[in-house]
Every structure is written in structure tokens, then in C-alpha cells.
């Protein structure tokens, strides 16, 4: 899969901006939220907001998995890809959900690589996939961004 650099305009995001992304299986924990839109200001790349259409109070910070981790690789079985409408890896964008934590030292953003979001950027069908723990294991430091 192509790696989007953090600073270049991201055609994938441009294609998805203000268009509905459908999670046919819902998002675990939010069964009522099947439709989301992605919002991103240019200076926020490679981060973006994923906003539920069905439940307006539900919003996530996400990051382009390949921009966050250049070595990131994801293996998804063909059945799952077929369900999303394409077997071509180039049709997909992958995002990590981000946990935002505030404490006395500031704000920490932690990417969650064990359950990435897989989005077919052509038809905007998406699902959350669960990655085997060993594949997703990284040092906590590598997953955190301290602000």
C-alpha cells in the first residue's frame, strides 16, 4: 500500500470529506452508529475527526496508520475485503483510533493499532478489523504522542 506522507495533500481524505462512510457491522461499542463522516483541516494531516452521523455526540480522533507508523502492515483475509467491495489493497485506507488522555503533564495521544479501521475509499464501505496481538504489539512509547 502506498504511504501517504504527513504533509502532502491526501487525495483519499479529499475523496471522503463530507461523504458518508458506512460501517455495515456498526462500530463495536456503538451499534447505532453505522454512518460516519471524516473531517480534516489541512494542518491536521495525518489526523482527522471521525464523526458519527447517527449519533452526533460520538466522535473519534483518528490517524492514517501508514503516516503514524511507516512499518505498519495489515493482513486481512480476502472474505473481509470482498465484503467491502474490493480485493485491491490500493483501494483501502487504514486508520487507527486515538485515545486522548489528559493529565498533569499535558495531553497524550495514543494510537490503538490492534483494531484499525479499514475503509474502501472508492465506495466508502468500512469495517473495524481486529489484529492479532503479536502483530500489533509495539512499545507504548511508539504509540504515544505527547503534547
Amino acid at each position, binding site marked *: 500500500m502506498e504511504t501517504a506522507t*504527513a504533509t502532502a495533500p491526501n487525495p483519499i481524505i479529499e475523496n471522503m470529506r463530507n461523504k458518508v462512510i458506512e460501517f455495515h457491522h456498526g462500530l*463495536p461499542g456503538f451499534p447505532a452508529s453505522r454512518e460516519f463522516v471524516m473531517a480534516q483541516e489541512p494542518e491536521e494531516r495525518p489526523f482527522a475527526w471521525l464523526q458519527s452521523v447517527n449519533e452526533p455526540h460520538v466522535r473519534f480522533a483518528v490517524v492514517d496508520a501508514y503516516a503514524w507508523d511507516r512499518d505498519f502492515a495489515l493482513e486481512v483475509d480476502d472474505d473481509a475485503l470482498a465484503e467491502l467491495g474490493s480485493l485491491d489493497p490500493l483501494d483501502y485506507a487504514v486508520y487507527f483510533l*486515538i485515545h486522548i488522555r489528559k493529565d498533569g503533564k499535558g495531553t497524550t495521544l495514543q494510537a490503538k493499532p490492534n483494531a484499525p479501521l479499514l475503509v474502501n475509499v472508492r465506495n466508502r464501505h468500512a469495517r473495524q478489523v481486529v489484529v492479532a496481538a503479536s502483530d500489533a504489539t509495539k512499545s507504548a512509547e511508539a504509540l504515544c504522542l505527547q503534547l
Partner: protein
Amino acid sequence: MLVLSRKVGESIKLADDIEITVLAVDNTRVRLGIRAPRHIDVRRSVPDLNVGAANREAAVPPDPAEIKGLLSKAASEKNRQG
């Protein structure tokens, strides 16, 4: 449900190519080794539930003031780190 007893070191086979071995047992915990082809999806049943919990934890508080400018800041920090 088929119920089997196995001793430590013994295993069971599912079909021709899946083998589950009991590696260790203590009072409340069993350690299992699972050998299966790559295409077999091996999961604990708990993490699926945890994905929901993790997602709920990741959902951002709806207060716009809290998060205004947060991702721009994150992007500059990430770019600075390269």
C-alpha cells in the same frame, strides 16, 4: 459441546491442521498453545468485547473547546518527530 480432559503436554486436534496443546495449568489459568494455518482466525472471545470498550474509551468528549486545535498540534508534533 464436546468436553475433553487433557493433561499438561497433551493436545487435541481439530480437522487435520489445527492442534491445541495444554502447556501449563495452575489454579485458575490454563495456558494453551495453538498451531493453525495462517488463514484460521484465532481469537480469544474476550477481545471482541474489549474492542467495544476500547472504542467507547476512545470516543472524544463532545466539548468543542476541549479539543479545538488538538489535531493541528498533534500533526505539527508528529511532523517534527518525522
